[in-house]
């Protein structure tokens, strides 16, 4: 029996220190986690709302949309419609966890175990985060972005900057490189590079050149279509990247703004692909740590019951006909699969040996889990590790809703021998961002003619774009491109389903 970490609900900073030390001991020794150094910050409810409105980041550039989100969250928080999260954790090094001051000592322990060790380990070890994010540089980069936007506002006016950022935000979900191969983001170098480029521009600026008559432009009609597309790097699905590099009339600072928005979108890209795994890992880790602390006698029975109460709420999965149902709860699903892996590795049944020959009965639970956490994302994780037993437990079934079908929605598969694989494949697909985001890419630019930009939306399963929103986003796109933009929706057989053409709005002379 070790000494109690705390009694009752009160805590102070010494308590937090003891809690963190105790959690760290379990996390590193018993679970073998590998984490970034931790930084724990205690904040108020208002500060939590602040963090909400700027996508959880401690510093961010200024934009009206964040104010809108803040007002929205604040209104629903005041009315009691929404509780605040117990914590926010940031994928940075050091890994920063924000704890709410209202939390009881038990909740602080839970939250430290969850965020400072669970999420932290996942951030540091998962391949997607390693590949796409730069935990060391993110805070400095955000600082740079904030200052850069501020400077731009001073130089070019708030309205101009806002217009560019509005457009960039509208395209944010299509400002991501989805395939590795490009070099890893190095945000520190990125910041230096921006500075150097500005300096270079200032050094070589010579107003005389502006007055020199231009020679006749080279005729491009000779370029073959293939060559032209290749020069422009087409087809290109990263719309922000394409605009930054190829939009003919953007000012350098506008390109830099697009680049900033693009980098931030890229930074969040792994998070959207690993919601289930990330929360599952953190929940599994907090559950293990809390249980261990209780076994050691460092948490009293009463406090442990309090923890179990919150834990049960977190992993609650309402059924589809429950009014509270709003899709799969990533905490519930992730935690269940990880506990199931633990069971399979430690005490497999015959069914498990058949389905999971690689890990069944292997014995080293933490070894297997650490490997899973490092090398999978939601889609592959579910596709690989969702067991028949869990599908039966959740009583999963697959619905196929075809608007053409008069009879109604068909139950395609259920949790039985015939359906296991199909249910699992479908659930995995639901967690694949490749299927969630519309597949839109730049296919061509009519350089010899009216410079019209041509985009294709590859329609999957007949799901087309929402018209009002599509028009608005295209308007933003056209404003940045400064010539007409056409979006063509085509199905798998290249049949054109719908075509949008949008012309840019007249822009004040400020854009050179």
């Amino acid at each position, binding site marked *: 029996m070790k000494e109690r970490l705390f009694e009752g609900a009160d805590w102070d900073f010494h308590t937090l220190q003891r809690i963190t030390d105790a959690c760290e001991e379990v996390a590193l020794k018993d679970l073998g986690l590998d984490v970034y*150094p931790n930084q724990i910050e205690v904040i108020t409810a208002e500060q939590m709302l602040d963090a909400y409105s700027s996508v959880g980041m401690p510093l961010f550039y200024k934009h009206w949309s964040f*104010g809108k989100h803040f007002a929205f969250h604040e209104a629903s928080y005041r009315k009691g419609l929404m509780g605040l999260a117990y914590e926010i954790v940031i994928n940075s090094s050091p890994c920063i966890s924000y704890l709410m001051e209202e939390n009881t000592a038990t909740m602080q322990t839970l939250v430290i175990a969850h965020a400072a060790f669970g999420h932290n380990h996942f951030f540091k070890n998962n391949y997607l985060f390693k590949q796409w994010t730069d935990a060391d540089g993110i805070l400095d980069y955000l600082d740079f972005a904030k200052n850069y936007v501020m400077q731009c506002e001073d130089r070019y006016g708030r309205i101009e900057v806002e217009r560019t950022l509005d457009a960039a935000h509208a395209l944010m979900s299509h400002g991501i490189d989805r395939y590795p191969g490009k070099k890893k983001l190095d945000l520190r170098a990125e910041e230096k590079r921006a500075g150097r480029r500005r300096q270079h521009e200032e050094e070589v600026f010579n107003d005389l050149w502006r007055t020199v008559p231009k020679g006749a432009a080279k005729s491009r009609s000779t370029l073959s279509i293939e060559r032209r597309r290749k020069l422009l790097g087409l087809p290109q699905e990263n719309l922000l990247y394409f605009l930054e590099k190829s939009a003919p009339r953007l000012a350098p600072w506008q390109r830099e703004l697009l680049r900033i928005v693009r980098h931030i979108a890229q930074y969040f890209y792994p998070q959207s692909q690993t919601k289930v795994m990330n929360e599952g890992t953190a929940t599994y880790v907090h559950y293990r740590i809390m249980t261990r602390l209780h076994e050691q006698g460092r948490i009293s029975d009463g406090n442990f019951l309090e923890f179990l109460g919150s834990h049960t709420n977190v992993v609650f999965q309402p059924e589809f006909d429950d009014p509270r149902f709003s899709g799969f709860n990533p905490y519930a699903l992730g935690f269940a699969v990880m506990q199931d892996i633990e069971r399979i590795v430690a005490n497999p049944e015959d069914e498990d040996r058949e389905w999971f020959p690689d890990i069944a009965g292997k014995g080293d639970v933490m070894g297997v889990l650490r490997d899973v956490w490092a090398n999978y994302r939601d889609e592959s994780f579910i596709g690989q590790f969702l067991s028949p037993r869990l599908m039966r437990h959740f009583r999963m079934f697959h619905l196929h809703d075809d608007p053409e079908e008069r009879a109604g*929605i068909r*139950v395609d598969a*259920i949790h039985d021998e015939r359906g296991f694989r199909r249910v699992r494949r479908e659930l995995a697909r639901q967690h694949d961002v490749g299927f969630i985001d519309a597949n839109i890419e730049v296919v061509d630019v009519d350089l010899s003619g009216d410079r019209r930009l041509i985009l294709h939306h590859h329609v999957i399963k007949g799901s087309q774009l929402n018209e009002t929103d599509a028009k608005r986003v295209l308007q933003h796109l056209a404003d940045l491109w400064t010539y007409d933009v056409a979006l063509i929706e085509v199905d798998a057989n290249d049949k054109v389903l719908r075509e949008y053409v949008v012309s840019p709005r007249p822009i004040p002379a400020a854009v050179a």
Partner: protein
Amino acid sequence: MPIHIIDRRLNPGGKSLENRQRFLRRAKSLVQGAVKKTSQERDIKDVLEGGEVTIPLDGMHEPRFRREGGTRDMVLPGNKKFIEGDYLQRSGQGSAKDSGPGEGDSEDAFRFVLSRDEFVDLFLDDLELPDLAKRKIAQTESEGIQRAGYTMTGSPANISVSRTVKLALARRIALKRPRKDEIEELETAIEACTDEDERAALVARLEALKAKAKRIPFIDPLDIRYRRFETVPKPVAQAVMFCLMDVSGSMSEHMKDLAKRFYMLLYVFLKRRYKHVEIVFIRHTDRAEEVDEQTFFYGPASGGTLVSSALQAMHEIVRERFNPSDWNIYAAQASDGDNSYSDGELTGLLLTEKILPVCQFFAYLEVGEAGGSAFDLSDSSLWSLYERLRNSGAPLSMRKVSERSEIFPVFHDLFQRRDTAQEKAAP
């Protein structure tokens, strides 16, 4: 591994204030419309409370490429009775799921809470105090007293006991004044002592201690500190608003309602500028009386009409209670324009001689019946009197109103930013 635990609660709040202001700026016209609509439903004092407004999200929408429709597949938990190949009806539960987990159209309207200041700012938009106020600026200062540390000299009334005792304690400790219990201890030791020699030594020590205690006083004049005060110029941050209204039989409920709305706006406006605003309600028929708000607007009264009585009453109240060098005085008069002819001269005299010189601003609001056709006929007696005064240079603001919707524009007119004082004279 070192762990940093940081208390961020003390960091200045309002980090997102800037973003919020940007949002409000962007949504300004929408929010302003909502604010005006909300304020119409409120009472005079509640107007200041701020509160929740709802705006349409149209201009505030952040568009994204979103997909909708098409064939959909979904995996759900909680199967109870379905088997493969079953068909579910689309109605009810099915269609509820159609709207799905996406954002959909759930954001049509947007509700949020405005703080009191934001509400009033938007409500009053870009109104300014009339230039007239500038005339008074030099005089709007008076002497105030504020604490300024401690001093060695002063009057006994200002002794700071805590500070004095604190210093005395420090001095006593520094000089090692024997404590009371020390002496008592020694005395009991002497009582208990049997050995003569030792007793003599103890007595000697006791004497020495007592002498020392006497030499070092409990409180020395040196310790005494007095609270120090100094006088500072203090701007006058208070205003009084006189509401004058004719309540004779010719004033209808509609007219009173118009007047009330105007007073309301004036109150809100002054409240924003001054820390402390008093309202004095003076109603008059052929004689005037000061009344409370309830009586002012709703109390029954009848009689003839003598405007001068109200002005006289106001003048007396000002003289008794509101010294013009301490108060910013605003007056607003509402009437249907009737006044007995014999009273005209006295009214004009009172106004120019007594009232206007002490007022920051005097507004006259002539209210009429809904429809307002009466105004086309001819000017009322009071209107023509005031107009004459104004043309001869008296700083009066006057307007005619007959519809509720005209109140705000009129108020706006009277208080909008002006570049020159002269413009004010023009109707």
